[in-house]
């Protein structure tokens, strides 16, 4: 993978920013530094091409609004981390994968296909009813609340583990 004319320093700086943001929020990056760098180069290329940091492992449309769900970190990252131990690209991984004890898995694409997305955007009402089904989780250590399918693997505030969360609503 090449940097498509993007200077090495820009890519390196972006790697550092993504790493720091991940650490601050209780997320872990893939333990293979070359793999991480190549993905981050892809994010930089996409930003240059499309004007937004589209997921390097998905084909962006060029229309930001259509691709809001795949701007990195994407809407699917945390569900994939929870279910598979890695995001779709395996940039973000679980503790087991980060430590090298588990191999990064091949994560199936969770994003609906083109036709399905079109249908979904045509009938927005489906999204409204979904909102009520999303549970709220409470970190028992620090009280952090979040509305999502599952609690985060690590609390972004106090770094407590996922099993310290309880369902709040």
């Amino acid at each position: 993978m090449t940097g498509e004319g993007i200077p090495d320093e820009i890519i390196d700086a972006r790697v550092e920013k993504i790493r720091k943001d991940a650490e601050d929020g209780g997320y872990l990056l893939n333990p293979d530094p070359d793999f991480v760098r190549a993905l981050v180069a892809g994010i930089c290329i996409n930003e240059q091409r499309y004007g937004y940091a589209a997921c390097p492992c998905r084909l962006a449309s060029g229309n930001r609004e259509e691709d809001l769900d795949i701007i990195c970190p994407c809407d699917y990252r945390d569900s994939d981390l929870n279910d598979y131990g890695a995001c779709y690209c395996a940039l973000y991984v679980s503790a087991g994968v980060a430590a090298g004890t588990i191999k990064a898995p091949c994560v199936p694409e969770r994003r609906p296909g083109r036709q399905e997305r079109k249908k979904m955007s045509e009938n927005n009402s489906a999204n409204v009813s979904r909102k009520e089904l999303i549970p709220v989780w409470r970190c028992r250590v620090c009280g952090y609340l979040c509305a999502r399918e599952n609690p985060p693997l690590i609390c972004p505030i106090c770094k407590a583990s996922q099993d310290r969360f309880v369902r709040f609503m």
Partner: protein
Amino acid sequence: MQMEHVKGRRRGEIILYALSTCGWCAKTKNLLGELGVEYSYTYVDRLSPAEMEDAIREVEKYNPSGSFPTLVIDGSRVIVGFREAEIREALK
């Protein structure tokens, strides 16, 4: 559609639809190289808009989610994603 050809051991008609920015696509391409098979590939993200649309439709025909990498062997066997064991098995 613009395809790059890689020479090697003939194991059927092998086509890889990939993205130039994607880590799993790169791993799949490396694996094909390691296996030494003859194949064609295209980086769909680098195609012109018209060619890109054709390529997306082709991918969707084999893999309705339209995701990458999509590996097609002899127009019938489809392997979606970097499924290393499956690829090795299919091309051994």
